[in-house]
């Protein structure tokens, strides 16, 4: 089987320069990552900041060498055959400020197209076409320094698609964009892949909803390791046999968490304080466990304001795998009140 992207026990360790005596001298950014992406897939890499998503993309786009393991893009080795990979890939990163402010949108895009060997005529034709699609046609002759962040990001997205890459890497492409712009970009990405079913996209994101909406398959990554890899539906189905409940409770203090920890059948719970109340997210082995939870809350004089059973989301999958929400991992603490049974 020919894969668009294939990694085999891929690892990357950074040496930390100038580190102090008792602090770690190495940072493990990726550890033993083995993935296979089929041609025509929109493959998502979902994980919090610092999970290793960008490191993986840098390796696959030949910007960074792995410490161990192998990575192939369209069958070419990223280290030994980088010159064969570069003509057939492109990359767009979120929050990019690439290009030259003094040049217009068209000139910036034309310049990058030349680096890929496109004729000027073809480049200009595609520029006009793609700018029309993303809604930037009226700014084609605007200097890129005069564009807002969102419009600049749209220009960069066009840059990525301009060269008609076989494999496109999108590293948090909607980072920093407003809701409308993000929606436009996601729609554009999906449409492009639908129109070019033989192309492949690898998308990294830490927005669950984006991964669920766009991706054919998702790999959940945390601290350099791939924890799970499957379609969003299958990943959520893992939790289907568990019961997921969302409660709003009156007490913000978590003095009752010890009581909850003692209850058999609670796989995970998270307590998030809000303004005047708290949200309790529960993953239970079975629905029957809920009664014990309600009893424990009642005994501790905690009033239940709202209770609903929900369908699992990728957020729940992440919590199930990692033990904390993505938000808490990013905050670098133990979460509001996480617990494992």
């Amino acid at each position: 089987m020919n894969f668009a992207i294939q990694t085999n026990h891929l690892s990357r360790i950074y040496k930390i320069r100038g580190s102090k005596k008792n602090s770690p001298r190495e940072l493990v950014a990726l550890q033993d990552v083995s993935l296979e992406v089929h041609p025509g897939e929109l493959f998502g890499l979902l994980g919090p900041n610092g999970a290793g998503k960008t490191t993986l993309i840098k390796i696959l786009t030949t910007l960074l060498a792995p410490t161990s393991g192998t990575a192939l893009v369209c069958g070419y080795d990223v280290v030994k055959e980088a010159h064969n990979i570069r003509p057939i890939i492109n990359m767009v990163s979120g929050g990019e400020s690439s290009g030259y402010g003094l040049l217009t949108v068209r000139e910036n895009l034309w310049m990058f197209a030349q680096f890929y060997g496109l004729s000027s005529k073809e480049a200009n034709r595609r520029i006009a076409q793609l700018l029309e699609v993303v809604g930037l046609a009226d700014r084609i002759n605007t200097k890129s320094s005069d564009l807002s962040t969102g419009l600049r990001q749209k220009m960069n997205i066009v840059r990525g698609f301009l060269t008609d890459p076989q494999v496109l890497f999108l590293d948090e492409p909607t980072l920093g964009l407003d809701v409308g712009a993000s929606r436009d970009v996601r729609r554009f990405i999906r449409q492009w892949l639908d129109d070019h079913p033989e192309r492949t996209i690898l998308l990294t994101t830490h927005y669950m909803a984006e991964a669920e909406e766009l991706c054919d398959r998702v790999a959940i990554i945390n601290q350099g390791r791939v924890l799970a890899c499957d379609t969003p539906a299958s990943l959520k189905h893992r939790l289907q046999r568990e019961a997921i409940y969302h409660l709003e409770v009156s007490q913000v203090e978590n003095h009752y968490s010890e009581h909850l920890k003692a209850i058999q059948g609670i796989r995970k719970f998270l307590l998030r304080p809000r303004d005047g109340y708290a949200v309790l997210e529960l993953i239970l082995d079975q629905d029957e466990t809920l009664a014990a939870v309600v009893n424990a809350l009642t005994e501790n004089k905690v009033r239940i304001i709202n209770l609903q059973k929900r369908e699992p989301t990728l957020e729940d999958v992440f919590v199930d795998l990692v033990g904390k929400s993505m938000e808490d991992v990013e905050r670098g603490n133990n979460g509001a009140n996480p617990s494992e049974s």
Partner: protein
Amino acid sequence: MATTVPTLPKASSWKLFFKTVFARAYPRIVGQQREKSWMFFDIFLPILSIAAYVYVYRAIGAPEEYIGFVVLGGAMTAFWLNVLWSMSSQLYWEKEQGNLALYIMAPSSMMAILLGMALGGMIATLLRAIVILFIGGWLFQVRFVVTDFWTLLLVFFLTMTALYGLGMMSASLFLLLSREAWHLANLAQEPIYLISGFYFPVKNLGFWLALSASLIPLTMGLDAMRQLVFPSAAQFGFLDVRIEVIGLSVLCFIFLLGARYLLNYMEKLSIQEGRLTESRR
């Protein structure tokens, strides 16, 4: 087994090389039309600097040839500054902006990218140098008498080729640097003005020091140009013009070859150490 699907038709390797050179030169050429502050920073300020040295020479009773040396040297500093700031440390600035990763990832060679930067920079700088020469020459009544135009052109061409080749070599070294890039570029200004004899005939440094300094292409280039442009300058020359032409040709070869080798080596090293995209300030 590698698999690819047909994509847009793209240029073969030589065509890609030249397309890249032209595309990368484009921002530099267009940039100077759109951002006119260079007229102040790259013409007026250098002329002030030249004026300072001219007045020093006049105050100490230097022969008039020295005024001409200063004007010519001052005009040529534009090229050294261009090589330092727009070539050597340019990849650091590109890294800061996020363009470097896109250049490395593109199928075009870094040599083509740097050559485009060099050509664009050279064209922009040539304009500045000519304006400084004219204004400086007029202000301080310097008489330029070109004794051999074609040799002068050859010397200028070889000097620029070798100089920008050196710039490309040092650009690859700067790939590994971070914040210190700015400071090292800053450090390389005055010492080079000194040992290359921008403001005085380099032979006054002594034979061996002047010979060592000749590794900087502007040393021999400037020395030869002075001999060709000022009638009595031959007595102040370090080496015969013909020897300097040969020397510059050798430097061209060494620096261009060195640039090619170093670029490949430094790119590989940067990829291994992860220095292409980090932005450590």
